[in-house]
């Protein structure tokens, strides 16, 4: 939790920070509590792997375990097609964010805008800027990240994992918890 100085006008740093969460159970609870979550998949999922398993595979397991609709950005859909999975929607990252900030948007399932948006695999500079859009202009929804590092502009973020093993353990535990709760 960030500490704000009493005379904030003089020293305010300008970050309404994300709540840092390390417990996969808590993440799973937040996802499962959401009525209309959305998982936004970025192109870094195609580049990185943990122990030989591509991140996109973790992402798809999360989507399946929690029954979350997916949005494929950039060229992610190409890899998903290879894996035999069809995303629920295709938007590039600025387009999905532009839609999400409209409270009256009907969402990728046409059932109403999403109340929790989980971002995974967007490069951090663009991701942080996108989260900033939603922080400022989309009070109707919460945001969450699954990337290895802390994203202050999200509502919920993982810490900066120094080691890939910690991140991998978190993702595996999240998948287990989501399966249990399903």
């Amino acid at each position, binding site marked *: 939790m960030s500490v704000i100085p009493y005379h904030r006008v003089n020293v*305010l740093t300008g970050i309404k920070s994300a709540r840092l969460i390390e417990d996969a159970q808590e993440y799973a609870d937040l996802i499962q509590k959401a009525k209309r979550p959305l998982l936004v998949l*970025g192109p870094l999922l195609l580049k990185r792997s943990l122990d030989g398993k591509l991140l996109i595979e973790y992402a798809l397991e999360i989507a399946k375990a929690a029954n979350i609709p997916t949005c494929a950005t950039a060229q992610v859909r190409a890899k998903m097609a290879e894996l035999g999975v069809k995303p629920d929607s295709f938007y590039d990252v600025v387009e999905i964010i532009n839609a999400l900030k409209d409270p009256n948007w009907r969402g990728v399932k046409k059932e109403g805008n999403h109340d929790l948006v989980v971002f995974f695999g967007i*490069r951090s500079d663009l991701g942080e800027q996108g989260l900033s*859009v939603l922080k*400022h202009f989309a009070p109707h929804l919460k945001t969450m990240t699954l990337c290895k590092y802390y994203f202050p502009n999200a509502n919920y973020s993982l810490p900066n994992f120094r080691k890939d093993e910690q991140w991998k353990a978190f993702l595996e535990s999240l998948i287990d918890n989501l399966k249990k709760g399903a």
Partner: protein
Amino acid sequence: MAKVKEITRKLEEIQKKIKAEIPWEPVGPTPMPEIPDLRNWDMRLLKTYAPFYAPFCDLCCFCTYGKCDLTETRRGGCGIDIATQQARWVLLACLMGCSAHAAHGGHILEFLIEKYGPDKKIDLGGSINIEAPHIRTVVGLKPETLGDLVIAIEYVFKEITHLLDSTAMGQEGSYLDYESKALHAGMLDHVGMEVADIAQIVGFNYPTSVADTPLIDLGWAAVDKSKPVILFVGHNPATSTVVIDYLRENNLYDQVEVCGVCCTALEASRYSDRAKVVGPFSRQLFFIRSGIADVIMTDEQCIRTDMPIEASKAGSALIATLDKAMYGLEDASEMDTEEIVKQMIEDKKHFAILDPRKAAEVAAKVAMEIAPQRRKEWLTEEEARELSQKCNDCGMCEQVCPNLFNIGAGIAEVAKGKFDLIREQFNLCVGCGKCEAECPRKLPIFKIMQIAASKETWKVRAGRGPIMDTEIRTVGAPITLGTIPGVVAIVGCSNFPDIRDIAEMVDEFAKRKYIVVVSGCSAMVAGMWKDADGKTVYEKYPPNFDMGGVVNVGSCVANSHITGAAIKIANIFAALPLRGNYEVMADYVLNRVGAVGIAWGAYSQKAASIATGCNRLGIPVILGPHSSKYRRLYLSRKEEDDWRVMDARKREIVDTVEPAPEHLAYVCETKEKAMVMIPKLCIRRNDTPQGRAIKLNHYISLHKKFMGGGLPEDIHLFVRRDPDIPLVYKKEVREYLQKIGWQPREPVGLPTLIGTYPSKVPVDAVIH
């Protein structure tokens, strides 16, 4: 024109300035437009392409009421909200960029008028009659002399002052109005750039009215380090041209190597094809730290602010030649030349010398004197390996890298004698030097990376300035009908996600017979790749502004010739008058000229300003991922937005349904996505069925190539009738359209936004 102008003497003054009595064309409704004059056009654009703000900071810290927290629904002490604060930042960025180019233009004009007088004629050669499309359109003036260019630049200076005024605390309170002002600044920028480049072409005898300009040696290995080396850094050619003159006049040009980094290199190579282009801005610090330059001469824009420190570290002598960047150095403009040379050699002192002739003489003498005493050897692999041993993999370098890669991992590999990773990483490095500044063990990371730098040399075609009128006559019809699928302008700075992306994009679209235009740092890196036959894109493709051509217009300020070409199409091909007629020109470009800008490595405020100027003129721009930090895009919501236009022939408003172009300012995360967006953003409402089919063919085929097969999910929005469907995908597209219940619709005869918003321009004005 704003009402106020009609009731005061202002219009009379404007008519005098633009020599309205010379009837080369009737004066349109907005000569020398002020802030409100094109506001309705802006608001119409912003209705469909709404500003999309990504705040880079939650605060405002501009005045002593702050810092003010603008999160949630809070307003600052002055009443500003977060959206308006972002728009204010955008305007400030555009003003910085616009000022940089305009001041550059103003300085060059002063320099040349001092030399030649104000009556020196503007002559851009036999193939260029419309010498200044922006000045003619915006200012309403047909410039015939250098003195006429002063009228244009003084108009820009005046408008900049009014725009900057609006950013002071307690003024503008609407983000839309700030955006309109930013669009105004962007438009002015193209005027300022045009002034600068026309003056340079005229004053320095740069190539003009020619496509096949010389191929210039490119890359730092092209620099002959056995000779004394003078390096120019920046943008303004007043210095480099005088240095080259001095060397020629004193028979020293064979003995001294002259080279440049960033746009000033392109300028030097337009003046002398023996000047070498080291590379883009992102290679500046590498090259300086290599110590190859004996004398560094800075001018303005895109020069590192720590240049005196870096020059001293490398043992190079530094001369700051322009007042924009004097680094706290002693101004030696009036000091005795021999005394300056003595102090630079003996005391290793750097100076500011604002007299170009004196600066040139000092540079030549100092370079020749100190070069023999300096070591200019590349680091060996063994030395790099030894230096890398100190790395303890703390990860600090990765945390500060703006391109988000782990140079520490590359250094760790070098320590083991492996160099593949660091060679790969060199392509990602944007050259900021933050990694080295952060390293707790003070590893000379940039020096170590020397072993990754290619020792290969390439070619870049010298900048050719304006597109020729004769070329416009040839391509005007196929561009507006769509049979040339588009003009793809790959421009701007070098904050690339990967430096190799540019050549790949140029090659892809030239191969597909788009007209590819390049400028600035992007023009350099386009040349830093060779095909299997050892050819760069400049050797592989013709230099003509025609299908499949690759055209280097020149430096940053030459970007005005790219947008100028779009105006020329409206004026020369469609015969629409341009004088003081901005709305008609912009409306034509938006609806009929399939052009898109790609600023893949945009980093500076100048890039923000250039792009915003393109947007006001109706040209969409795709930006690389870093550019999300510019805080603002212009995005539509596809099916949910207003795509109605006036059919000027039938005089009725028609809902076209098609988002063409879909966005005006758009960020892509990957080059693959960008290459799918490029053909889509070249689609225009005016396309003939044949042209539309060609454009959709590229859109579908690139989508299939990079997005894993299948059709683009929005293809139905761009198919008006069956003949729009490309032959090769006929069956697949028809099946898809049938499946989703698509209905054919009539193409619009003469699409225009005029008539869909309040404007003094009558619908008749767009009929040609």
